[in-house]
């Protein structure tokens, strides 16, 4: 019969699927088969274990894109990503995960290094990725500011001088207004000093013979540090041994020299992201101080040409990780994108710098905002425990299904085993796709949970079947009805679970994502195995013999009370007792593990 043949083919398909899944789930078998590249295949088919199962490090960095011009942010982040990648690969970690992520307005880089033991070492290595910048002088803007600041300072000094001369307590004024950190808390007290201890302008005043002890010098004294209000407290000694005890209030004078480097120079947009390569270069100054020669990419070359053109005769500063490394004076415009960093470098320093620059200079600075590390031994025991739990779970569910749903239960268990094998096979095969699946502890939990859910579908079907049987239908018909009627419930139930897994996947981080993805996969896959596979198997195996052994199939169910006036298909009354005592469980064709 055509129908029977079709069923036979379908069943054969199921068996084939089981076989393939089993193979893929245990690729060790491959090495016994005479296929070429067996070893490689086995390698590619390895299950990717997550950090919490093999031990490793998870690092999360925030990338500071505030200095990057708006349109270039994505580009800069990508560049940073590839730099970190190069660094990680240089560290020699296989199967590392490096990705960008976004949270709110902050851009993050996530680095996962499985199998790495020393987290401090790893962090240091990553941090070493230098942030290279070229900056030009901010002098014009600054000098105006400096002059203004100095004017204000002097004005304030004059005001306080008046107050000091009027007899206000000097010490209090010093504590409040002096900006000499060494003395202000002591009321500006400088202790006894001989000539020559202070700068000449200071000395010239305090050693004046007409400067009385206990008075405040009536004018501001200007030195390289700024403006001083000086009070002489007392003096002692004669001639060379003469010492004067003074106190002062300092109002600082700023100049370009006192301004910090990072303020003195402003960003130009030329940074590590434009660096094509760096090399050690020996200046043609004979034995030469070793230098670093840089080659920029096309865009960098252009930027550099503009910068040098603008700054001929001025200094251009090179910053590494926020500290100035060298500030050469530009001789002329440099159009070819080559630059040289000279400084007091030893050869070792230069080589190190070149290595770091080549391995990658970060276009944006990064700070560590989160880390997690799992020791490999913890991971190992977690893996073993969870696998064991999964095994127990599978076993328990199988026992339950067989006890309660008897022969039908066997079908469910059979499908369950295939399901597990198929899911495992999918994990392994994902290594070939651009979306390799990483198995984490939560992933295993998701896997185990999905087993319970997979079996649910079968429960629904079998319960429905029981009901149909209790109305007196034939076994075959009851089964079909069971599958058909249960389908809407199965579908709706699984969809609602899927909805939450989708939400979890989108919003979740490591633990949650791993769990949700695998649960989702499992739910989808189980729709196939629990429904289609079981259906095929049952249709194949359940034949006319079953009619006489209904109780072999499933425990009978009390028929629900009929509603008045309703048309229901009640054929014969069913006795709730057993018809024939079940002889033995029929040997079934499923694979037992």
């Amino acid at each position, binding site marked *: 019969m055509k129908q029977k043949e079709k069923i036979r083919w379908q069943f054969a398909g199921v068996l084939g699927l089981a076989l393939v899944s089993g193979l893929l789930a245990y690729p060790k078998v491959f090495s016994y088969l005479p296929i070429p590249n067996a070893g490689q295949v086995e390698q590619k088919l390895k299950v990717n274990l997550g950090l919490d199962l093999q031990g490793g490090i998870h690092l999360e960095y925030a990338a500071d894109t505030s200095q990057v011009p708006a349109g270039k942010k994505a580009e800069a982040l990508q560049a940073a990503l590839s730099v970190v990648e190069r660094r990680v690969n240089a560290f020699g970690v296989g199967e590392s995960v490096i990705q960008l992520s976004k949270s709110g307005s902050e851009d993050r880089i996530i680095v996962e290094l499985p199998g790495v033991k020393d987290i401090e070492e790893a962090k240091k290595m990553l941090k070493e990725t230098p942030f290279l910048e070229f900056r030009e002088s901010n002098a014009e803007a600054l000098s105006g500011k400096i002059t203004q600041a100095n004017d204000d300072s002097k004005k304030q000094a004059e005001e306080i001088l008046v107050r000091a001369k009027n007899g206000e307590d000097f010490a209090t004024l010093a504590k409040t207004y002096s900006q000499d950190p060494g003395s202000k808390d002591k009321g500006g007290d400088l202790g006894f000093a001989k000539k020559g201890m202070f700068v000449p302008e200071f000395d010239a005043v305090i050693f004046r013979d007409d400067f009385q002890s206990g008075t405040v010098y009536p004018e501001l004294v200007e030195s390289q540090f700024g403006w001083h209000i000086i009070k002489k407290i007392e003096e002692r000694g004669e001639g060379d041994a003469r010492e004067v005890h003074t106190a002062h209030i300092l109002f600082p004078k700023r100049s370009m020299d006192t301004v910090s480097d990072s303020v003195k120079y402003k960003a130009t947009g030329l940074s590590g992201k434009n660096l094509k390569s760096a090399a050690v270069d020996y200046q043609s100054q004979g034995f030469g101080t070793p230098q670093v020669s840089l080659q920029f990419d096309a865009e960098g070359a252009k930027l550099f040409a503009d910068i040098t053109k603008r700054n001929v005769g001025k200094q251009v500063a090179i910053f590494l990780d926020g500290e100035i490394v060298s500030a050469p004076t530009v001789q002329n415009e440099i159009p070819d994108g080559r630059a040289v960093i000279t400084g007091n470098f030893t050869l070792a320093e230069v080589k190190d710098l070149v290595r770091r620059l080549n391995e990658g200079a970060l276009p944006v600075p990064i700070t560590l905002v989160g880390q997690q590390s799992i020791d490999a031994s913890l991971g190992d025991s977690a893996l073993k425990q969870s696998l064991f*739990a999964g095994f127990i779970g599978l076993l328990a569910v199988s026992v339950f299904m067989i006890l309660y749903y008897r022969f039908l239960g066997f079908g469910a268990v059979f499908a369950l085993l295939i399901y597990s094998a198929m899911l495992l096979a999918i994990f392994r095969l994902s290594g070939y796709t651009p979306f390799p699946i990483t198995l984490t502890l939560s992933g295993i939990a998701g896997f185990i949970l999905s087993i319970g859910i997979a079996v649910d579908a079968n429960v629904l079907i079998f319960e429905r079947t029981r009901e149909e049987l209790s109305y007196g239908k034939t076994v075959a018909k009851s089964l079909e009805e069971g599958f058909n009627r249960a389908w809407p419930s199965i579908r709706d*139930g699984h969809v609602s679970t899927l909805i939450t897994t989708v939400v979890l996947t989108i919003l979740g981080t490591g633990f949650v994502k791993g769990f949700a993805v695998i649960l989702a996969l499992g739910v989808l896959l189980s729709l196939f195995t629990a429904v289609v596979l079981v259906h095929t198997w049952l249709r194949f195996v359940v034949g006319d013999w079953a009619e006489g052994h209904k109780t072999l199939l499933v425990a009978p169910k009390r028929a629900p009370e009929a509603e008045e006036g309703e048309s229901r298909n009640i054929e014969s009354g069913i006795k709730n007792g057993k018809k024939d005592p079940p002889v033995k469980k029929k040997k079934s064709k499923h694979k037992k593990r």
Partner: protein
Amino acid sequence: MIDIIQKRKYTYWFSGVLAALSIAAIAVFGLRLGLDFNGGTMIEVRFAKTPAPQVSEIQGALATLDLRSLTVQATGDNGAIIRFLASDDTVNGQVLDELKKTDADLSVLRTDFIGASVSGDIRKNAIWGTLLSVVAIAAYIAFAFRKVSFPIGSWEYGWGAVIALAHDLLITTGFFALFGKFLGVEVGVPFIAALLTILGYSVNDTIVVYDRIRENLLRSRTKSDFETVVNRSVNETMSRSINTSLTVLIVLAAVAVFGGEGVRWFSVALLLGVTFGTYSSIFVASALLVSRYRMRER
């Protein structure tokens, strides 16, 4: 046939008391929030020398660093777990250095550091995730049951399910307030994941019952009392509901008992949620439908 719907008064009392107790537990004990939500650092070390440095010695070593909310806990494994609200990574480095001074050969088993911005994210995501899931599920149910607008609207089905779900989540959270207070169990991202999973899964059960109600309503030619139809539906689906939950509970129990420390409380949360979810699907969700119907009738 059990008079579940007719005796729904008892259901409401039982659930009401549980819910009230849960709210009380959460209000009084609070949830013990872990690193994920508070931010901070947790370092687990194993000392090489025996006897291992005492808790007080470790605290002394770290006293100079001015750490906030520092707690030190000895573990059975000749080790210690040190927790504090960190500001940044350099502080962590200093802590490690001080620890190394007490025992140069110690091994660091675990360092978890969640900066403030990351934990802020996690908090935000947890709230959004829950809200989103609830809304999505309610919408889905309303959509799936759109054809059954009589005698109560399809949105009522959604509400019934959502209230039952909220009840499940509330009680589970109440339990974890207790666990937090008396067993020191911390609530972090896994807990939220468990809650969301409970949301998604427990609705299964409710749908099974609603499905049957829908089927019986569509079938019933006579204007049978809505209450009777619902009660019959619940009875008919009871063994189904219990068994589907049972299969999940079995596997979860296996994980809770045999699985590692990392997933233990996660599976306990799921266990509680699924158990109460089943209870609420059978007793609460359908009772709510009938009550709503009664309210409308007045």
